[in-house]
């Protein structure tokens, strides 16, 4: 007979409606044996009572359905974001409110590097909050004129570099004619690089030499620490290249005794045909372990709204920008969907603009008629601009949606003012509509684009505040209970894992978010302030303070 541990808690929020709250949970073999009061649990026989969580609130381990493991890697660079943000070691870095402060922070890091040629890299800059001030190479030259410097913006699609970096990358010349590379009065690039195409040749010289979609081993370990601090026990790495070395490394790191999360990497559909991709993922699925859930695909239909590369239906962008870009043709997506449905491989598809969403719906519908699949759960990721009619179609087609609630907070003001205009900004990330139309829904951070933290994400969906403090889209707010469901069972459902995780219920993984505050009592406006003690993952205890 194996050991049974009973944990007492101030309160256990189970997300199981037949027993919504409890005082004790019994764990055996990393799974939940029973939930209830102590007397009920003791009927299972010999056990050890553990009071570690006696004054804590337990929730199901939180599930982040759209994040990227590269957040772990990015923390090795200088944090230049506007908002306070905690690193993997738990240190909270104060937000930099002006460009001068960003430059000071870079300078502090610069003087600590002894080798004169080592590049200095920063990340998460967002001049939107600084009056859209332009940052130029002259600004970064004040940090160092001799060391290459690159600062990646929060969006991941813009980079600022200094003169030395331009020189090393071969950009310090006149005559450059590229829409992503503005030129100064002297005919030389200003050091602002818009779009990955413009960034890539320079990125290698400023310390961003890895593919930005990949985390290395240390990065993955650091990502695991961030998960513990956020109460997350299951997390996606939504679009990985999954090359052989990368898969081996992920298997190795997630297999380490101290690795605290269940990672769900999705194979990026890019640079290979639909058939090759599906065949590869069928093979990867066989190598999946409990903590590395290989076997899913991510496709990308369009670009981003703030980058004006999302595909919009009429009337298009509010500021008159031309329509965005398709990243995958409907014919390619149609082939992928058919093959994946036939092979029982799930596909998540990134859409931002409502035309991209429409295209996916139009493409999946005939595929489903060809390959009937009653429980496919193909999921739209971001899906920020879908309207009610599109949600009703998602419901009919058996699709799930994972909405970008955090985006509404960070860039909602920009969307209202500039990109899509007031009407559509109000309906962006329409959580209420998703639930009312019966579409299984999750909400996400897209870390590192915004910080990993499902309770913050839930707060965003509940309050719909923008960074300037306006409530944007009163009607699309959801209740706290609904938001907590979205970051547990809701997200688990989109991954076909709701039978294993997402609630504290007999037979499921012993995955808990260990909280110091009760998210159902703290008040909707304070949901983001719930303090996380750590997690229990597969019955293993991870205290954030002791990572």
């Amino acid at each position, binding site marked *: 007979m194996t050991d049974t541990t009973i944990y007492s808690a101030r309160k256990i929020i189970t997300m199981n409606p037949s027993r919504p709250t409890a005082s004790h949970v019994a764990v055996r073999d990393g799974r939940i044996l029973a939930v209830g009061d102590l007397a009920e649990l003791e009927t299972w026989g010999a056990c050890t009572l553990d009071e570690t969580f006696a004054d804590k609130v337990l929730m199901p381990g939180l599930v982040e359905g759209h994040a990227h493991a590269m957040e772990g890697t990015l923390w090795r660079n200088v944090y230049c974001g506007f908002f306070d943000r905690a690193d993997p070691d738990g240190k909270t870095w104060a937000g930099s409110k002006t460009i001068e402060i960003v430059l000071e922070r870079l300078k502090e890091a610069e003087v600590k590097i002894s080798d004169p040629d080592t590049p200095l890299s920063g990340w998460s800059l967002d001049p939107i909050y600084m009056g859209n001030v332009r940052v130029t190479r002259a600004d970064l030259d004040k940090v160092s004129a001799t060391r290459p410097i690159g600062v990646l913006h929060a969006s991941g699609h813009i980079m600022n570099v200094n003169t030395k970096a331009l020189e090393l990358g*071969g*950009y310090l010349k006149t005559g*450059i*004619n*590229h*829409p*992503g*590379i503005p030129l100064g009065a002297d005919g030389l690039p200003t050091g602002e690089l818009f779009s990955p*195409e*413009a960034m*890539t*040749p320079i990125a290698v010289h400023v310390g961003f030499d890895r*593919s930005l979609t990949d985390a290395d081993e240390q990065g993955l370990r650091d990502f695991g620490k961030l998960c513990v601090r956020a109460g997350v026990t299951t997390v996606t790495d939504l679009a990985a290249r999954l090359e052989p070395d990368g898969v081996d490394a992920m298997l190795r790191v997630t297999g380490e005794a101290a690795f605290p999360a269940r990672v769900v990497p999705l194979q*990026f559909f*890019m*640079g*290979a*045909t639909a*058939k*090759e991709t599906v065949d590869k993922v069928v093979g990867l699925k066989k190598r999946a372990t409990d903590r590395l859930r290989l076997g899913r695909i991510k496709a990308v239909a369009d670009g981003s709204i703030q980058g004006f590369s999302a*595909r919009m239906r009429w009337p298009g962008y509010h500021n008159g920008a*031309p*329509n965005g*870009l*398709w*990243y*995958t*043709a*409907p*014919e*390619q997506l149609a082939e992928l969907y058919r093959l994946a449905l036939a092979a029982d491989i799930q596909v998540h598809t990134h859409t931002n603009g409502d*035309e991209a969403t429409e*295209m996916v719906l*139009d493409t999946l519908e005939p595929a489903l008629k060809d390959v009937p699949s009653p429980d496919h759960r193909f999921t739209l990721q971001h899906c920020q601009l879908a309207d009610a009619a599109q949600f009703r179609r998602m419901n009919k087609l058996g699709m799930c949606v994972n909405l970008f609630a955090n985006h509404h907070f960070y860039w909602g003001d920009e969307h209202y003012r500039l990109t899509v205009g007031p009407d559509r900004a109000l309906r962006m990330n329409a959580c209420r509509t998703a639930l009312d139309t019966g579409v299984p829904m999750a909400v996400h951070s897209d870390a590192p684009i915004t910080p990993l933290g499902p309770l913050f994400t839930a707060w965003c969906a509940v309050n719909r505040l923008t960074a300037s403090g306006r409530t944007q889209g009163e009607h699309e707010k959801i209740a706290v209970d609904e938001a907590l469901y979205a970051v547990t069972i809701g997200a688990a459902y989109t991954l076909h894992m709701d039978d294993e995780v997402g609630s504290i219920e007999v037979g499921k993984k012993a995955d808990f978010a260990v909280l110091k505050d009760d998210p159902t009592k703290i008040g909707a406006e304070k949901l983001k302030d719930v303090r996380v003690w750590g997690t229990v993952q597969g019955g293993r205890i991870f205290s954030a303070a002791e990572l």
Partner: protein
Amino acid sequence: MTASLPVTVIGGYLGSGKTTMMNHLLRHADGLRLAVLVNEFGELAIDEDLIEAEDDDIISIAGGCVCCSFGSDLTSALLKIASLDPPPDHLLIESSGVAIPSAIVGSVSLLDGFRVDGIVILADAETVRANAVSKYMSDTVLRQLSDANIIVLNKTDLVTASYLSETLGWLKQHNPGVRIIEAQQGIVSPQAVLDSFLVKPAMSEHHHHTQNLETVTMIPENPVDVEALAQELAGEAAGLIRAKGFATSQSGQKMLIQIVGNRWQISDAADDMDDGIVCLKYRSG
């Protein structure tokens, strides 16, 4: 003259025949070392009988040609091509069916060591007009066509003469000044697509008859307003598909002129080059 590697971007919507044309060019490389970048290695990317060896990310092709896939990272693939030894004579980039070719040109032009030769867009004579009004792809297809310096109107054997003539007129409306080459099964003269072939003396004549193309050499006045001459050669009235050669400027500088359809480029050249421009055009009459 610089040793920059000339780059031709081959674009066009899915099914327009890019892969078929690429294979035709590889098959008739005639000793030129072509490098080909494709968005993805499909099962049918390269005809099997042309493949000599294959490893993870590079395919070696008979006659010293190579093929790489670039997926989401064109820049890295370009840097890989730049490091090949011996260097290729010409690089072809087959863009994805939804890519905007001028964006690829933008990426290539950022890197030293490459010279963009031009954009060749394939269009399927049967479907191009339907694609241009399709619900989702309309603007993408039209942007591709308007980016073209040369349009290869492929599969002309699958449409009636009157439909073909309407389509030709329609294409000219959308991209005034573009040169259009009609083709079947992706068979075009390598000379029409790549300037590296144009000035290769050993280039055999046998490609011409299928295309009704001819090369003529013109000797410009000496000296001449080189920029005006280049503009004239790229103009619709001249009707050239491409041209390449040397002229002497009014300041006595020897200049290289390169014409790809409606695109012209001039650059300084070595003094010992003889004046003369090889022009490729449809055989008259």
